[in-house]
C-alpha cells in the first residue's frame, strides 16, 4: 500500500511515547518563536534542536520524502526570488555593505544579503522538522484529544478525531474503487489524456463520496444512540498524564517563545547584527 504523504508514522520511538499535548506545545513554541525571532544564533540553535529531535525520533527522511522535497523546492525558489527582487535588502537591514562578488546590474552578492538569506533558510530548518515530527509521532485520536485539552470544544475535537480516524479507511476505499474502475478500462494514470483522466477520476470520486456519506450517517446514528452531544461537557477516560519529559518539553516551548522576545530587547530590533 502506498504510504500517505504526511501522516502518523507507526514506528515506536522516544517521541511517540510523549503526550500529544506536550508535543503540540513544543511545535507551537517553535513556530511562534521562529515567527518572532530573526536572530541567526537563535534560529541556528532551534534548527539544531529540531535536527536532534528528528534523529531521536526514529522517523526516517524517506517516510516524509515527498513533503521534504516540496519544502526544499519551495525554500530554494523563495531564496532565488528574494535575491532577484531584493538583492540589497541585507544592506538596508544591517547598514553596511561588504561586496563579495560583482554581479550584473544590481545583483551584487553582499555578505549582508547572504546573512539575511541564511536567517530565512534557518527558519525553514527550525520550523519544519518539529511540525512534521508532531504529526508523524502523534496518533490521530491523541492529536484530537490534545485539541480538547487546550480548550477546543469537544464536539469539534471529536469531529477532527473521527475525520483523522477515517482517513486510512477512505484511502483504502479510494484505492479499491479506483482499481475496480481501472479494471473496467477507465484509466486514471498518466497514460490517459488529461480530459479522460478527469472524467475517469470523477467516476471514482462519485462512489467514494456516496460511500462516505453513508458512513457518516451510520456513525452519527451510532453516536447519537450512545448519548453523544447531549451535555455541554463530557468527561474523558484517557487523559495521558503529563510526565517529567512532557513537562520539560512544555517548559522548553515556553523558553523558545520567551527567548526571541528577550532578544528583541538585547539586539535592539529583530536582527542580530554581526557587521557592526
Amino acid at each position, binding site marked *: *500500500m502506498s*504510504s500517505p504523504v504526511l501522516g502518523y*508514522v*507507526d*514506528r515506536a520511538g522516544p517521541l511517540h511515547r510523549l503526550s500529544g499535548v506536550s508535543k503540540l506545545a513544543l511545535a507551537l513554541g517553535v513556530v511562534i518563536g521562529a515567527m518572532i525571532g530573526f536572530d541567526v544564533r537563535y534560529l541556528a540553535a532551534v534548527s539544531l534542536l529540531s535536527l536532534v529531535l528528528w534523529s531521536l525520533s526514529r522517523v*526516517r527522511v524517506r*517516510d516524509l520524502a515527498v513533503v521534504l522535497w516540496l519544502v526544499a523546492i519551495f525554500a530554494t525558489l523563495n531564496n532565488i526570488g528574494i535575491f532577484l527582487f531584493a538583492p540589497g535588502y541585507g544592506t538596508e537591514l544591517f547598514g553596511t555593505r561588504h561586496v563579495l562578488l560583482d554581479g550584473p546590474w544590481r545583483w551584487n552578492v553582499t555578505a549582508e544579503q547572504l546573512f539575511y538569506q541564511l536567517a530565512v533558510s534557518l527558519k525553514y530548518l527550525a520550523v519544519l522538522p518539529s511540525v512534521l515530527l508532531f504529526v508523524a509521532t502523534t*496518533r490521530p*485520536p*491523541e492529536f484530537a484529544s490534545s485539541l480538547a485539552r487546550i480548550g477546543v470544544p469537544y464536539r469539534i475535537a*471529536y469531529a477532527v*478525531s*473521527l475525520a483523522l*480516524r477515517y482517513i*486510512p479507511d477512505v484511502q483504502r*476505499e479510494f484505492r*479499491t*474503487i479506483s*482499481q*475496480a*474502475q*481501472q*479494471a*473496467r*478500462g*477507465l*484509466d486514471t494514470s498518466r497514460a490517459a489524456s488529461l480530459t479522460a483522466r478527469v472524467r*475517469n477520476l*470523477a*467516476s*471514482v470520486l*462519485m*462512489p467514494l463520496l*456516496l*460511500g462516505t456519506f*453513508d*458512513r457518516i450517517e*451510520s*456513525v452519527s*446514528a*451510532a*453516536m*447519537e*444512540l*450512545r*448519548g*453523544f*452531544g*447531549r*451535555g455541554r*461537557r*463530557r*468527561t*474523558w*477516560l*484517557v*487523559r495521558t498524564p503529563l510526565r517529567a519529559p512532557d513537562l520539560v518539553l512544555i517548559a522548553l516551548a515556553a523558553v523558545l517563545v520567551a527567548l526571541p522576545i528577550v532578544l528583541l530587547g538585547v539586539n535592539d530590533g529583530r536582527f542580530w547584527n554581526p557587521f557592526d
Partner: protein
Amino acid sequence: MSAAAAPGEEPLITLRGYSFQYRAQAEPTLHDIDLEVRRGEKVAIVGASGSGKSTLLRALNGMIPHHHRGTATGTVRVGGRDPAEVPLVETARVVGTVLQDSNSQFVGLSVAEDIAFSLENQQVPTARMPGRIARAARLAGIEDHLEDSPHDLSGGQKQRVAVAGVLVDEVEVLLLDEPLANLDPAAGRAMVELLDALHREEGTTVLIVEHRLEDVLHRDVDRIVLLAEGRIVADAPPGEILASGLLERHGIRPPLHVAALRRAGAPVTADQHPSRAADIELTDGQVEAVRDWVASTPPAAADGPTAADGPAVPGALPPALEVEDLRVEIPVGPERSTVALDGIDARVRAGEMLGVLGSNGAGKSTLARVVCGFERATDGRVRIGGADADGWSLAERGERIGFVLQEPSQMLSQPHVLDEIALGLRARGLPEEEIARRSEEVLEVCGLRPFRTWPLSALSHGQRKRVTIAAVLALEPEVLLLDEPTAGQDLAHYSEFMEFLRGVHRAGTTVVLITHDMHLALEYTDRVLVLSGGHLLADEHPAAVLTDPELSARADLVTTGLFDLARRCGIADPQQLVRCVIAADRREREEAR
C-alpha cells in the same frame, strides 16, 4: 425458560396496533403490529428483506421518531414509556442497540475508550469508569483486548466491543440488528453463544433481528417472530414455527436438517425440539424415512451439481486461470508486512464453476485481488489463459477476468443503468453500435431489461449487484470472479441471484465464487479451494470438505446440520445426504419455474 418473567408483571416492550409510514414513502412499512416482550425473554425476529425488520427495531430503540420521521399510529411502550415522548438517550438506557456495521460504530481510539464512550457522554467521573468498563468487557468476552485499537480486531471482536459499549450502561434489553451479517460462520456461532450466556447468566432480555436462522438457533430462543410485508405472520416458540412450514413460504431458509426431513417425507413436529440436528428427538420413523430416501435416490440424480452443466469439455482448453507457488506479503506499516498468502498452487479450468472457501482473513479476497492485479504478488506466478500475467495492467487483466466487488456501491458511478454498462465499453473505445449490441445482450442475460432506463438509485441492493455484473460481463471476460456474491441477501434473493449466475455459467463463462458460506459452495460448485491463514488446505468437492469435521474446523468453517443428521440416521457417507438434499432443492426450484 423465561424464568425471570413473573406472570403478572408489566411487559418490558409492548406494541399495540402499531403502524408506521416513512415520510418519503407512499405505503406504510409496518402494519398493525402487536408484540410483547417480557423481561428475561430471548426472541428472534426474522423476515425477508423489506419485511420491516429494521423498521420494527427502530421503533423500539427510539430512532423512530428521533432520527427517522414519518407517521405512526398505535402505541409503543419501552420500559413503560413512549420512546417518542422521551429523549433518545432515555430509551437507549433501557434498550441497548448493536448496529449491523460494527466498524462504523467504533468511535474510540482503543477498545476501552470505545466502551467508555457512553459514560463519557454522561459525564461519569474518570475514576469511576475503569470498574464499569472492566465489567462490561468481561460480559462481552473482550476483556483481553482493552488496549487494542480497532484495526487490530477481527469482525467478531469488534461486534463484542459494540456489545460491551451498550452493556456498560446496564441496559435491560439488548437489541441486535443482523449481528451475523458481516461475520463468518464460526465467528457468528461464537456471537450466538455469547448472547446466550448473557441471557442465561445475566438475565438480559435479548432481541435478535436476523435472517440467518440456522445460525441463531445454534442456541435456544424462547420465541421466533416472523415478519412478512410489514405484518407479524407468526409469533410462537421455535418448535412450532419450524414445524409450520411458514418460514419457507416467507423467504427464510429453515435449518437444513428441517428441510431434509421434510424432503424425506417425515417433517419435524413442534414437540421434538427441532432447533438443532444434534439434539432433535428423532423418531424411528424419521430415521427410517431419511435412510430410505437416501438409498432410493439414484446416484446420478444426486451427483455433483454442475458436472453435467459445464458448457465445454474440461481438459481440451488451457486452464482459464493458474497460480503457481504464489506468495503475497501485504505491508502493514513501515518495514512491516504480513504474509497474506503462501505457497498457493491452484488452477481453474475453463467452463468451471469453482468456490474459494475460508473464514474472514483466510486470504480469499487477497487471492482475487492478486489475480486481478489490485495487489502485487511477492513471489510466484499468475497465468491467465495460459499466459504469464506478470506486467499486465489492471485493464489488460480486466479484459480477461471480470472482478465483481462485494459492495456494489464501490463500482457504480453513473446515474443510469445503461450508462453504467456502457462506461467500460466506451473507455475501451468500442464503436457505438457494438456498445449498444453488447448492452442489450447483458441486459437480457441479467434480467435488467425492464430497468434499462432506470436511475441506479431506484434499484434494490440485489438489482444494483446485477448491474455491476452486467457492466463487467459486457466486457466479455472469460472468467467472472465474485467476492461474497450473496452476503446479506435473504433466501429468495439468494436463490434468484444464484440461479442467475448459473445461467451466466451455462452460457459459457467460467465462474469463481469467493465465499464463507458452506451451503452456497455445496449447492453451486463442484470443486472448492479451502484457504486458511493464507495456506491452501484443500482442493476438493465441497461435500468432502463439509463432511470432514477436522478440515472444517481447521478452516474455521461450520458443518451444517446435515452432517449431524446423517450421523444420527446411521448413514455411513454423509455426502450422500448432502447431495440428495441439494438435488431435491434444485428439482423443486426448476419445477417452480
